[in-house]
């Protein structure tokens, strides 16, 4: 059974068809990429999977169950975590709190437990703290735990955002342009980090990325979309030499 299946997914915004007839069957533990020119509809695909939009047509099935009708926090609780194209950390609270808050799906206590500081509350908060510190340790972010994200260098903010997503312990991690805005040293670090996460946590990773260095060195399968439609898919070697892809990226100069 595939981990994620999208069947004939179409998303319209008014007259604009941002995603048309999108199909994919993603197996567990795969590492794949979605590429395409700006405005092709890549982020929209991620927004559909996260439950941020309900598809105009088609079906999304995660872990054997359709996600239709679920709110984003429910989709996340099922095991899909993501990062954003523009970093979306909570900038007025510490890195540690950023990770703690992403544990809302496993709180397991009510507001009354919080008021009364019941055993259930203490246990859950202890558990959340342990998970948060473990993730900061694993991602080499311990020193930044009490910093505000906005005071960190951009590369580190990216890393915090990935740590926050991973602390949810997802089965599928969606990365929306993780290398955007990074310098080349940071990009090398990112490649290592993603490979390490993939091996260590044994999860499926799906990334949107423009930097071919990242895509080519990490991904086993690539899907290319343009104007919302799939124009090619295959291994990195196949995609690199595909004339349709090259044309989409370089533009049609027959005009």
């Amino acid at each position, binding site marked *: 059974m595939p981990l994620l299946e999208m069947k004939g997914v179409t998303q319209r915004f008014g007259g604009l068809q941002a995603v048309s007839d999108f199909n994919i069957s993603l197996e567990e533990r795969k590492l794949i990429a979605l590429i395409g020119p700006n405005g092709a509809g890549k982020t929209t695909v991620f927004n559909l999977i996260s439950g941020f939009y309900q598809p105009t047509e088609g079906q999304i099935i995660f872990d054997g169950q359709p996600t239709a009708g679920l709110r984003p*926090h429910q989709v996340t609780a099922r095991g899909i975590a993501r990062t954003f194209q523009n970093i979306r950390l*909570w900038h*007025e609270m510490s890195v540690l709190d950023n990770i703690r*808050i992403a544990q809302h799906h496993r709180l397991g206590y009510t507001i009354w437990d*919080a008021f009364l500081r019941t055993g259930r509350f203490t246990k859950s908060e202890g558990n959340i703290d342990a998970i948060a510190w473990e993730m900061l340790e694993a991602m080499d972010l311990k020193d930044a735990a009490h910093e505000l994200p906005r005071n960190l260098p951009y590369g580190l903010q990216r890393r915090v955002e990935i740590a*926050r997503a991973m602390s*949810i312990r997802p089965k599928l991690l969606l990365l929306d342009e993780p290398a955007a805005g990074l310098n080349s040293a940071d990009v090398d670090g990112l490649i290592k980090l993603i490979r390490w996460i993939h091996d260590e946590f044994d999860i499926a990773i799906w990334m949107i990325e423009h930097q071919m260095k990242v895509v080519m060195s990490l991904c086993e399968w690539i899907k290319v979309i343009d104007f919302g439609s799939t124009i090619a898919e295959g291994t990195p070697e196949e995609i690199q030499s595909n004339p349709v892809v090259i044309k989409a990226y370089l533009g049609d100069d027959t005009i």
Partner: protein
Amino acid sequence: MQKYTLNAALAALCLGLVLLAQFNVIDQYTQTVLMFMGINIIFASSLNIVNGYMGEFSCGHAGFMCVGAYASSVLSVVLFTSNKLVGDALLPPELAPMLFPVVLIVAGLVASVFGLLVALPSFRTRGDYLAIITIAANYIVISVIENLDIIGGPRGFHGMKRVINGMRDMVDIPWMFIWVILGTLFSVWILRRLVNSTYGKGISAVCQDEVAAEIMSVDTNHVKLVAFMVSSGLAGVAGALYAHVYGYVNPQAFNILKSTEGLVMVYLGGMASLSGSVMAAILFTLLLESLRFVIPGLDAALHAVNLLPAGYELSQVWKWVLIPLILILLMQFRPEGIMGNRELSGVFPKLRRFYTFK
């Protein structure tokens, strides 16, 4: 042991105040001012949950105070005194001292249900539109009560003095003074517990990036619901205490001007700072009280130097020139308030040695 210094000092302070009140070392007037301080602390810190921590702009907080004031007043009058509404007291008045906390809690619960008036629209709107809805909620509450003749309509509702006097007849201690202190400690205590839990930090996450919060597994609608209901519920407790301190309630006491007082306190203290709200409430209460003396003094002084026409008297209405002026000056010169969004323990880290918060 050192960790409990602050808690012990606070307990000693409260006990000391009660004893001073009991033996009339502090007079009735001072007691009343202290009680309004407590009520303002509850009012401001509960408003801070919505306006500070959640980053919404509620301008109708007094509406919930009004609900709590009326709910508790009707309840305590009906339960513990003979009255026009149902005739004889429903319960033996001897129970009043014991059941008064229940009255406060019921008032809070009723007010928190009215919080739904703004919580539910908040799922779909934010910012300016929600602010307008909060003003509307304030007016709805006041208009409904003004049109309920059975509880006095625009003339107001009274009878709570008899409940309090009944308590005093049984045991002669300053009951309301004690209830206000307990209510204030209780409110600040649960708010602290809320905002320091991972659960409650979801409120700040919604404020800072709602989309990220929802996608990082925070049930944002639930968080908003809880924030509005806790906030309005505690405003209801403040209203209940207010009604029993005054012994009389009137819907117009809870109009938009009262809500503005709450805003001034929250912005004076600093958004998302509970200690800021507490300090601001204390300062603001003192300031308002001082105006009672300053305005007549100013009036006399201005007349003495012939700056005011003989027939004109500088009245307490001028308070409504001064309060908005404070707000304007504050926004101009220190928009982050006294504390910014920090707590006292953040400004003075050494304080942490002297208290523990469980």
